[in-house]
């Protein structure tokens, strides 16, 4: 079940520093949305608002406004553990656990209560197939995940996320540590996965945003110490061919950032 994610008048603070200013944005279900913008524009902060992991990497964070997943405000008395189960996350550097391939996938379902081995076997197989990794690892489920190549490790991390049936899948520059072939594989996979999930991907590569996303959000901060703002959000094709903001145009034609 994929869900819509809605930001309503969101301000976000790290201590006294305002990182995001009055964000208004609706991310559609079963679509790929790309967040683009220069470094420091706040796009990763916005991404991490959705599973509330900003709070894990920084102390004293504060959010005003509402962030809704399927119309439920996730900043109002929500259970963080079930929220994070509902919102999967794939990181910049592949970070499989130093465990076996099988354990990487089975770990999260098990802590969420799946006990039976045959059930876990099934989840592992299904998730790995879904991440287009099954054929390459089915004979080494018991080997260490760290023995896989970088691209395989990243797909393993995707499989690990979808093993708990998330509604939203967040990807924070998932291909920036990968070579072009592995990147292409991940991009193909993202296209396939959007049938079942709401996917948000932060990327530094505008080509990537253009290739795989349905809609694109452009963020910009007017300098160090100033908050990031959403400049433009719309269908990817339109944003790239006919941007409504001059700032967007300047960015995508490579004139700053």
């Amino acid at each position: 079940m994929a869900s819509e994610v809605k930001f309503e008048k969101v301000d976000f603070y790290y201590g006294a520093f305002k990182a995001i200013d009055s964000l208004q944005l609706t991310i559609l279900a079963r679509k790929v949305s790309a967040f683009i913008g220069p470094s420091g524009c706040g796009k990763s902060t916005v991404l991490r608002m959705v599973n509330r992991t900003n709070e894990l990497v920084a102390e004293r964070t504060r959010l005003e406004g509402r962030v809704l997943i399927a119309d439920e405000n996730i900043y109002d008395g929500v259970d963080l553990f079930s929220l994070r189960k509902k919102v999967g996350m794939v990181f910049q550097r592949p970070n499989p656990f130093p465990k076996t391939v099988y354990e990487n996938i089975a770990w999260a379902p098990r802590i969420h209560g799946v006990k039976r081995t045959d059930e876990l076997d099934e989840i592992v197989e299904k998730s790995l197939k879904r991440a287009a990794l099954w054929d390459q690892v089915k004979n080494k489920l018991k080997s260490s995940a760290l023995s896989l190549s970088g691209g395989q490790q990243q797909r393993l991390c995707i499989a690990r996320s979808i093993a708990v049936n998330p509604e939203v899948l967040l990807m924070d520059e998932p291909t920036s540590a990968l070579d072009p072939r592995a990147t292409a594989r991940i991009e193909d996979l993202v296209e396939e996965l959007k049938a079942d999930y709401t996917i948000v991907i932060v990327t530094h590569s505008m080509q990537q945003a253009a290739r795989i996303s349905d809609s694109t959000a452009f963020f910009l901060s007017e300098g160090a110490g100033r908050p990031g703002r959403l400049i433009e959000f719309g269908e990817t094709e339109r944003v790239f061919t006919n941007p409504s903001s001059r700032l967007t145009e300047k960015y995508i034609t490579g004139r700053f950032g």
Partner: protein
Amino acid sequence: MAVVGIILIFTFVISAGLPLFFKVGPYRFLFGMEWRPTGGQFGILPLILGTLLVVAGALVVGGSAGVVTAIFLSELCPQVLKRTFKVVVELLAGIPSVVYGFFGIIVLIPFIRSQVGGSGYGILSASIILGIMILPTVTAIAEDAVSSVPIDYKLAGLSLGATDWQTIRQVILPAATGGIATALVLGIGRAIGETMAVLMVIGNAPQIPDSLVKPVSALTSTIALDMAYASGDHRTALFAIAIVLLLIITLLLISIRLLHARLGSAE
């Protein structure tokens, strides 16, 4: 310099102690049940057993407390308190061992005498004192190991909806096993070598104990106590005990090496 020093120490201790091995026979020396050097009985089994029991006890007390402290410091403690706690732990390492011994005699021994029984001097007291003494070593090294686990693992675990504790226990600790094992082995090394505090609370009775509150003797404390007056074979026997200590420590260090080699190749 260090190498020369080590070689000199080994040569000296071995040449001073080895004659007794041959005179008594290695088996009767190591496994002899009776240590009565003035009566010609040189069995050091009671001493070995005393050392092992006390060290094992120290590991239970200080090893577990050290690992728990390390986890707390690197994963759960708020930044503000972390500094203070670290200074306290370092302070613990700087206290002279005779002061620990004092603390044992004045506080711990009366307490054990009244609450558990016996004279108070013995395995239990020595284990607790030694446990506190190895705490800083274990904590410092285990903390290094735990905090060197990449934060990526923690984030991955938590963003899958796991609790802090599930992530720590099932992801971070397994990734830090090698370092934690090293911390424990070094703790053991420190415990085996410790002399003064042990001597003050262990009771110094070279016997095979039948309970935790019985006084025993340790290898190190026996050397320190007897050296003052020993002569002849007795004196040689003390050097032979030193050989045994050197062997044990060498074995421990080798085991750390092997541990690292094994864990290194597993990754």
